[in-house]
């Protein structure tokens, strides 16, 4: 088998790995084909029907479900394709809220991209619009909301939860004429089996699943999750002097972008008001604020009096290697004892 398959899309010759779909091959070559339900981490299902293309000798096919083949001739534009796409797009946006500027996905939204590409006729839309009351937003999860009014029913969240996370907390649910995404029995997310990992939120192509109080960071710092021993790679999103977001590092081999609820949403402690911001020393039985100089002198003075076997140190499995190295060096080289341990056993 050849390493690469060659095909033409709109007269452009491209190559792709065998087995790749026409859609992903095109996107990889910098060629846009409208799409909503395809996600690189998931198997294609072909439900949004936006990615229609014409393959010579075969007619219209879904680009996300059709693998590349040697010599394939593909066209992404034709009156027929444009017509189907326009109708599909209109149906998607006809009752979509129009407050894009207030949406957390604004500017990163796949639906905006599709609409911009396909083109929208305001008058036709106005005629199609039906009067519907907005459906209630599920705000029960403390970290993210589900707004069915913004949902395009691509099913990416459903497949993420079942195929990637193995949790299957959510599915398509039918409420009268309207389909939404909901946990089994349509109960609120917080009462479901949902583990709040946020993997569905990350993959939602529109603003239907969106983090609460989302703030965009001004810069990101590549680091490692502070919680469990898996050591997932993360990017800390910083804005001003606060951490406002965490994103899984897609390139780190330990987690390839995945995170759990603690890693993704558990950063609030960093800028918490309870943080210790000055040393404290006990005076007359009470802890009172002190300067570093005073606290350190006191520590050194008292440690100097208990060198040897009357001293012990407990290092921390939450501190860095360098810090733990220094603590054991202090204990052994300066305090003269090997009584150093940490809570590895707990």
């Amino acid at each position: 088998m050849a390493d690469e398959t060659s095909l033409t899309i709109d007269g452009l010759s491209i190559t792709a790995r065998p087995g790749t779909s026409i859609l992903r091959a095109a996107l990889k070559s910098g060629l846009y084909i409208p799409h909503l339900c395809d996600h690189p981490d998931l198997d294609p299902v072909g439900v949004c029907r936006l990615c229609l293309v014409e393959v010579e000798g075969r007619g219209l096919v879904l680009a996300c479900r059709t693998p590349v083949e040697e010599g394939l001739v593909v066209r992404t534009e034709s009156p027929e394709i444009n017509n189907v796409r326009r109708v599909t797009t209109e149906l998607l946006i006809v009752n979509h809220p129009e407050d894009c500027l207030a949406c957390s996905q604004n500017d990163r939204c796949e639906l905006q991209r599709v609409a911009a590409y396909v083109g929208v006729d305001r008058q036709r839309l106005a005629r199609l619009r039906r009067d519907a009351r907005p459906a209630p937003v599920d705000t029960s999860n403390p970290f993210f909301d589900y707004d069915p009014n913004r949902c395009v029913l691509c099913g990416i969240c459903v497949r993420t939860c079942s195929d990637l996370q193995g949790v299957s907390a959510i599915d398509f649910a039918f409420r009268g004429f309207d389909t939404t995404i909901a946990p089994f029995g349509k109960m609120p997310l917080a009462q479901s089996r949902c583990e709040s990992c946020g993997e569905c939120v990350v993959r939602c192509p529109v603003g239907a699943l969106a983090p609460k109080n989302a703030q965009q960071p001004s810069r990101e710092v590549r680091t490692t999750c502070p919680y469990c021993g898996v050591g997932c790679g993360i990017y800390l999103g910083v804005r001003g002097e606060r951490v406002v977001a965490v994103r899984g590092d897609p390139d780190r081999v330990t987690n390839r972008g995945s995170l759990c609820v603690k890693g993704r949403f558990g950063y609030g402690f960093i800028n918490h008001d309870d943080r210790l911001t000055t040393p404290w020393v006990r005076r007359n039985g009470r802890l009172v604020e002190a300067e570093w100089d005073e606290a350190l002198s006191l520590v050194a003075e008292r440690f100097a009096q208990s060198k040897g076997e009357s001293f012990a140190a407990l290092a921390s499995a939450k501190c860095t290697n360098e810090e733990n190295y220094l603590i054991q060096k202090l204990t052994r080289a300066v305090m003269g004892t090997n009584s150093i341990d940490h809570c590895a056993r707990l």
Partner: protein
Amino acid sequence: MTNSIAEIGDAACILAVGTNTTVAHPVIALQVKRAVARGTRLIVINPKQIDLCRSADLFLQPRPGTDVPLLTAMARVIVDEGLADTAFIEDRCEGFEAFRRSLEAFSPESVEPITGVPAAQIVEAARCYATRKPATLLYAMGITQHTHGTDNVLATANLALLTGNVGKPSTGVNPLRGQNNVQGCCDMGALPNVFPGYQKVADPEIRAKFESAWDCRLSDAPGLTHTEIFDAIAAGRIRSLYLVGENPVLSEANANHVREALKRLDFLVVQDIFLSETAQLADVVLPAATFAEKDGTVTNTERRVQRVRRALEPVGHAKPDSWITCQIARRLGAGGFDDARPENILQEIASLTPSYGGIAYERLEGDGLQWPCPTRDHPGTPLLHRERFATQDGKGRFVPLTYKPPAELPDDEYPLLLTTDRNLFHYHTSTMTGRVEGLKTLAHEELLRIHPDDAARLGIADGQMVQVCSRRGEVTVRANVTEICPPGVVSATFHYAASPINVLTSSALDPVAKIPETKVCAVRVQGQ
């Protein structure tokens, strides 16, 4: 871990024993679940019906504390049915004959009354693990937190040796370490008997090396372990304690004892990011920086050394721990603490620690490096024991084992068995996660899980407050009536200061690893 996280997905069989993986190591659990979706067989061995059971092909539910007979009976089946990897045993192991003889006492039928696991299930699990190769074995604190925890670990190693599931991709004996840098903390010699890189303090040559590097005299007497330190404090032998980033008042077994002990100290220094329950007892509290406010390295459960990078300035007057420790040392007149810059400290570590010899900041930009990494051009070691084991002669050693019951079992007075675990939303004593509003909302209080039969017998309703007593203390906690726990067993976490479960647990120790038996103690539960 002998092997790497990324290898788990390619195993043909995964044996997960004593690990509540979806809760404690969620992203490793993803690997496990995705492997199962692709056809990997999953065997779960756990006293509780944990979440991972939903993905399992086989679920064995032993009584807590009976892992040695269970795992050894599996070994017996493997030998009896001729499923052992004889070439591997011949080539790379020793002590097989004595081990084989020791299996006499462990037929699946004879251990059934001890473990409560039907013999047929033991046979099935043994066949699956021995025949579907490569097979990987994952374990966590359900294996280690016992008075016979070392034996449990040896029992897992025996199984892996017997089937040749070591030293090859997607095999191995893989402990999943709990805290983000518990591996690194051990590697760095924050242990009473070894210097960095597990170099023994009792070895005169090693000591000489560190004495010359640090320009001092070093003690050859191994120090005290965590639990022993608290005993020595209680006995008045240790007078000052330097405690960094730990909260033993909640995390330590037999927590009342710990609290009493700490009060007896002449001088307690606590260095932390919050005023923890333990810090409130201190004479001096030193404000430390969080991971987001400092540079450094941490080592994950697969021995991967990764970077932590400063994203913010420390809040207020807080300082990185490395700065604080260096300041204390310098004020004690010590040399060798002048440079607190992490990249230079790592250089010193590398110069004294063979397994970290080749690790340096400029090499850690991508995925980091897995130790052993002895030289600057060494690529790191994703997979241990490829050709030889870390023993003198390079052979893997079978160890015959005997069944030792837990130190404290239920009796008339304390008829239920308490085993501790964790939940998904909190971490250790919740000093960090307890300050994240959403995590508090999702899991805001301790729950004592109890089987419906026990609950009915005791007249306890789901959601009711109950009193739990052991020989060491008592706690009030909300009951959660569920079949996750088998009859006779109750379980709870230790995340919550309001229901400090570790006042109940036993600090009986494993004689070798000195791990307290927090996975088994006897309690009495009554409604309020």
